[in-house]
């Protein structure tokens, strides 16, 4: 049961109510929970994925979006291999806050962290942020980008799969087997080609 090849830590951040918890539960449990309550502090989930025959264990830390919990959530950034910054495509304010979030990432996360921008709730018909705008922002800030829906499941698995794939690449390009240790470092300065290539169009 412990035969995974890599262990990666993924942290989700973003405004309250953008659907972080729903994304995680969709991915780990395959459900879209009705009446999902606001997260308190930090939630934790685990999921093993298979990439090219390799088992990858993902530790997923789902943080609360409410500002008052920043006192604890920020402490989870540092050890993250990947940070998923989520906004709600149907809520302009959640997009407007992205720069603030990025500043926090700069301050608290490792400089080598893999940064992914996610526009969630694409199933909704009251979209306010066109895909191009989200993508533009991600390119400006050197992030990967993908649009998802926790509700209709689109791109959720892909999101985590791609993250795992990138992290493996980073780990390999760095030569050191990242392995099962908690102290994995990502030293690779891999080009962030993700958003341009395969996964940003939904």
């Amino acid at each position, binding site marked *: *049961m412990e035969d995974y090849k890599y262990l990666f830590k993924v942290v989700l951040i973003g405004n309250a109510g953008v659907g972080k918890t729903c994304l995680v539960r969709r991915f780990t449990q395959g459900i879209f929970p009705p009446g999902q309550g606001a997260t308190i502090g930090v939630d934790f989930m*685990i999921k093993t994925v298979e990439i090219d025959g390799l088992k990858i264990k993902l530790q997923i830390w789902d943080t609360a979006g409410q500002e008052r919990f920043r*006192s*604890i959530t920020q402490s989870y950034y540092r050890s993250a291999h990947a940070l998923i910054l989520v906004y709600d495509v149907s809520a302009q304010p959640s997009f407007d806050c992205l720069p603030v979030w990025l500043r926090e990432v700069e301050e608290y996360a490792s400089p080598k962290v893999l940064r992914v921008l996610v526009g969630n709730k694409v199933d909704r018909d009251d979209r306010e942020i066109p895909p191009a705008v989200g993508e533009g922002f991600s390119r400006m800030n050197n992030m990967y980008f993908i649009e998802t829906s926790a509700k209709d499941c689109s791109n959720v698995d892909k999101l985590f799969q791609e993250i795992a794939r990138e992290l493996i690449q980073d780990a390999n390009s760095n030569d050191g087997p990242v392995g099962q240790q908690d102290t994995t470092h990502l030293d690779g300065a891999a080009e962030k080609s993700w958003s341009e290539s395969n996964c940003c169009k939904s």
Partner: protein
Amino acid sequence: MSVWSTLSDSSFLEMLDSVLSKCDASHCCCGCCAALRPRYKRLVDNIFPVNPEDGLVRSNMDKLTFYSMSSPEKLDRIGEYLAQRVSRDIYRHRNPMVIIAMEAMDQLLLACHAQSLNLFVESFLKTVQKLLETTEPALQILASQSFVKFANIEEDTPSYHRRYDFFVSKFASLCHSNHPEVDVLNSLRLAGLRGIQGVVRKTVSDDLVENIWEPVHMDKIVPSLLYNMQHARPRRISNDDNSPNGLPEEQVDSENGARNIDPSALAENCLRELVGRASFGNIRSVIKPVFKHLDLHELWVPNDFAIYTFRVIMYSIQVQYSYAVVENLMMHLDTSSRSRAKVRTSMANVLAKIIAIAAGESVGPSVLEIVNSLLKHLKQSIMSPIPVDDKEAVTDEKHFQESLISALAEFAYHLPDYQKIEIMMFIIGGTPGTGKSDPENVPAETLLQHMLLKCLLKVSHKYKSTNFSTSLPLTFLDPLLRTSLVQDAYVRVLVQEILHCLLDRHDNRSKLKKPSVEICDLNLAIDKCSRADSLFYKNHGSRILVNLSESLDLNNVTRENIEAIYCTAALICVELATDEMLVDILRWALAVQDVALTNTMLHPKNRLSLHVVAISIVTLASHTMNVTTLVEYSSKVVSARNGSAPHLLNFNESSAESIQQDAISPECLLDFNAIADCMKEAGRDIMGMIPLQGPFNANQRYSWADSSVNQPSSFTDLSNINLDGSESNTSSPGLARRYAEEEVTFEALKKVLAEPVESRREAEYEKRQVICEKFRNTPFQQLVASSQSKGDVLNDTLNQILTRISVMPCGQPELNAVQHNNQSLPHYGNNFPDLFVY
């Protein structure tokens, strides 16, 4: 040897047993080949019951334990195998089996204190982590329990590579459990808290393992504890002064506690433990997340929780570090300078509440640092531009200032007295002085004076004066006296009140708040004056008195000023009852009366008040010094006033305007010569008065205008005439007056104050000599002539007075004295009242 043989015998039997039982147990995954499996695996397999509900098979567990203890080299294999089984059972959701496996691991852990435990621990922790990774509350709680057991054992060799990162992260997450069922939620939070407690215990004791004090851990641990404390029953957080003290409010069984323990109580305990273990270098990393949490959860206003938290911290931190908490709080106040005034006020209030706890331990520079920082905030707040029309902002800022002051006072209160004095000197040093200031800044500066002196007053309230030379060293007294002459009347009141606190050793000041001639009613507590006291008086007493009369003579003097100054003088009478003081205070009283009679700039009401002050002081001094003749004299004046001028005995609110200042009949006034005679009669040394006279001149510029320096006399004032009349009547030809030291200006006064007493005395002695020589050697006629030649003004005035005051009932003795003087020159020394007052 025999031991080993028995062992193998019994093991053999066990093996048979297990083979037999395995054959029955079809549940076993690979049961059929059990006999071919390694022995440790079979022993492990046997501890699991056929029916999961039956629980751990005890007898087989004993066998496994015995085996592990006797073959410790197998322990890591056993651990590995158990971990594997757990992993598989979790995957298959066979929770009862997971629980049984964990119980077995716990038992092995506790039983085996072998070196090889190290390897077993790896499997053990891996299993615990595995349980924590599940979404099932029961397994997570189980994991926490097992972890705590692990945390409590002492390992022989530290394992440098072991990391607790995951455990801290996960336990912190559990502390925030949001489970829909309250019971489960509580259990999960308790599991998280216990886990954190376990990690802390495991790591703090050993420097070689992971440093738990790293911000990456503390930033998770501290907010988790606070978040749980936040939801405590209101009683815990209640803000009364006796809650939380040094002891936890209730003992929490943190090991295998009952379900109904309150997470908040456990959280508080954890925080106490954590803070108690923090060394000096770690305090910041514990305190910083506290501030962050309080800020983000907006727990400063109201500040009950903040106070509660800091009390917990202060009472559990190692005492010698407690001031570091105060410093950190101060630093946080620094960084919060742009927060709302209400937030800053709350912070300062928290500071006030906890600062006392730190004060006992503060030593050396840290004390002044804290004071300095508080004063800095005070100044900043006062100087900060707030729109005056924003009423709320203005009052909020005011509250902030007050809370800073009370923090300072609270701090000082708990310091030893010598440090209180240090602090007071420090504060007065920071008070904008009497120097020139930018007129733009005057209102702010005055406000700052108010604030700082209020601080000073608060500190001095808590100060217990014993020895004046320590309470009022020159370096403190000087600036204090200087401040007692500033423009702002209220500041001057504050200075006097500070002096009251420092002078009053017998709690008399409340009785001496208002001038009164009913001394006996006051029940004053009076002690004998010690040598140290009289030395203090010799060095500083007269300066203080000079200062008092100067500040009475300021044009914007108020009723409060007069009362406060009276109180200071009265306290000097009581606390420094020396002969020297008596002479000075009598002259002081006369000087006060003189101001009352002559200073037309003063409000009529205040001039009356000064008469009350003068008679009250004379009465008080005559009682404290026990001079019967003076007591009699003063009561005579009192009864005269009772008859014709009762308004000169009490502060009078109403009638002041209507009363004519010049209508006071002489018998109602204190008479210089009469007092001198009383003293003489009582055998008091009047010569003693002489050397200290100099400074008193300052206040007598109205009546003793110095003709020798050709100043035009200002004898036009009727009240002047009145006094001078009674004086001139009796005194020498006025020659001596010409020897007034110098022109009385503020500069001159300052010089007098600044000059060493010695040189002043010398100068005065010389002058005295000159006067004496003059009187000795000059024929009387010549004296008269010279005094006449002085000019007609004086003569005219004298004549005027003499004709106006036709009857002088009290004048008899003085007239005698005049005659006496006129006839026998040799007595000049004692009898020329001029010498008293030049």
